[in-house]
């Protein structure tokens, strides 16, 4: 029996993909549009009509402000990653092995930096660091960015652990392996891709972070987002389009890598537990 196929379905069949195509265009076009704008040889923000030019990329590369901002962001993001990744990984392992009633409270505490509005976090860090003299210091920025990055590391590594066969750990324990050996020899190799993905997220969180940096960074710690924020605010030129293009390419490459790592980790874990599943 065929239900009376109605206009809604035909309408839906055409309208839904059409509407979604427009939304996808809205999501992607603004990001893609900055690429041709950045290749403009002139000083106006229009699509180049004849020749393409790397002039604005050279401007960025030769400007001491932009190169120093890049170096600052890179240093701060690296330090953030080096602190957040081990802390977050250990905590994710602890959470995954925990059977305690305190678990929801701990999860809520760890997710707090995601829930509190970023401007409130920025003010809190400003008030904390101003009397300690840590405003205008890279230490303050690294501490603040680490707090923001930790939840991401925990979420990503925890997701990698949920597919893990804990039977492997029990086997190791029954053979007499101490906990540390178990972590280093069995757990870390198995969830390595997840840890690497978490590290990439931590790096990007710090590298992209604008609001807190605007509040607590001094002239010596001008990061790339601050440089860009003030560029947009003061003098908008194709150089901004060039910087935006570079950042889009960088985050696409980095987070694409993280996604590949995550998928590889999934495959690896299902491979490791395969003998148990496929009887």
């Amino acid at each position: 029996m065929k239900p009376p196929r109605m206009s809604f379905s035909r309408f839906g069949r055409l309208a839904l993909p059409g509407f979604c195509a427009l939304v996808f265009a809205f999501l992607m076009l603004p990001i893609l549009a900055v690429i041709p704008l950045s290749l403009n040889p002139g000083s106006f923000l229009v699509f180049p009509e004849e020749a393409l030019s790397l002039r604005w990329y050279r401007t960025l590369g030769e400007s001491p402000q932009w190169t120093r901002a890049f170096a600052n962001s890179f240093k701060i993001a690296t330090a953030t990653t080096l602190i957040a990744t081990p802390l977050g990984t250990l905590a994710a392992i602890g959470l995954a092995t925990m059977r305690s009633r305190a678990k929801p409270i701990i999860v809520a505490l760890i997710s707090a930096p995601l829930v509190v509005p970023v401007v409130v976090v920025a003010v809190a860090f400003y008030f904390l660091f101003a009397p300690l003299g840590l405003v205008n210091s890279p230490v303050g920025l690294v501490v603040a960015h680490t707090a923001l990055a930790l939840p991401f590391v925990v979420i990503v590594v925890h997701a990698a652990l949920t597919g893990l066969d804990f039977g492997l750990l029990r086997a190791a324990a029954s053979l007499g392996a101490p906990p540390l050996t178990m972590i280093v020899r069995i757990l870390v190799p198995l969830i390595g891709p997840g840890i690497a993905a978490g590290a990439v997220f931590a790096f990007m969180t710090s590298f992209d972070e604008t609001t807190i940096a605007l509040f607590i960074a001094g002239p010596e710690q001008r990061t790339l987002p601050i440089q860009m924020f003030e560029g947009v605010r003061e003098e908008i030129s194709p150089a901004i389009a060039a910087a935006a293009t570079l950042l889009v390419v960088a985050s696409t490459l980095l987070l694409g890598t993280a996604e590949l790592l995550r998928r590889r980790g999934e495959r690896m874990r299902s491979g490791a537990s395969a003998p148990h599943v496929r009887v």
Partner: protein
Amino acid sequence: MTRRWVSFALIAPLLAFLIVSFIVPVLLMLARAVTDRDLDRTWPASAAALRTWDGEGLPPDALARTVAREMLAAHRAGTLNRVANRLNYDLVGSRSLLYTTADRLAAGAPGETLADLARIDRRWARADIWTVMRHADGPLTSYYLLAALDRRIDTGGHILRVPREQAVFVDIFLRTFKIASLVALFCALLGYPVAYLLASLPRRIANPLLILVLLPFWTSALVRTAAWAVLLQTNGVVNDLLQYMGLVDAPVQLIYNRLGVYVAMTHVLLPFFILPLYGVMKGIDPTAMRAASSLGAPPLLAFLKVYLPQSLPGVAAGAVLVFTLAVGYYVTPALVGGGADQMISASIAFYTSQSLNWGMAAALSLLLLLPLLLMLFAGRTMVRTVPA
């Protein structure tokens, strides 16, 4: 037993870090909204004397003498600034009153009685400065929270509205919540069909399309805001396109106004709506829809009665996430919004780093955070749907 301690030991370093460098600073900051320590830390004896004074009329000579002595001491120690700034929030002119009085006392003018002070400056013989000092005697205060709601306490302890020309914060809060709600609504209108399409397509088609959502999600909000700032300029690409298509004759103002905020914020936050909703929709059993239509329900009815209710938790999660992020946004409104049309984040930034009225910044932050926390407790779905 030992395993449990191993778990705790693994989490402990992170918890210690977060508590010291995040939870405690946020709580200390929020505490500034209800504490008032400028006067009682700088003038402890005066604060104690103010608390025992009944507040009727003019203060006794003993209180005036204590205030004069501590004013002089603070002036010499360079800490008078704190009290002067604090009193000036409540009563404009207090700052200069304190400094001129302290200068005269330092030059040897007597400060033993109220009459002595009134001889230095006649304003000491009026009740208002003493009432303001009594309000500022700490350690707790309602001053900042009331001020953040455009209210104040008069000399008789009644809560009043501040004059219309000074009443700004309630308007800014309402504007902030309105912008955030509308952005969440726009995200729902644009995002629901997309999540539905992605969830109903086979994986080999849905996965490449999902990249079109993930790529903007991965690109930083600042970069995307900058892209809009570039495109929406008066002589920018969007205006050229509108003119080319004959929709407008002259360039239109698309940025530095509310329109720019809606466009850019919807763009920035749309992936945060689509991803949790997509997760929920993937979990909806498609056979329920087939069962409904095999029982004769027309597709629209089947959708409304069967699919929509099951997808609502995803809509709620996405909307709460978008709203939460939108109310606290600083960068996007600062770059594409109008100067006189800012959200509460701009006021918080102003009181933090320009006017240095930290109590006010803390009170505004507290009033921003409280409704969010209530909302999150009401809809517990949030924590689990934060996309990774």
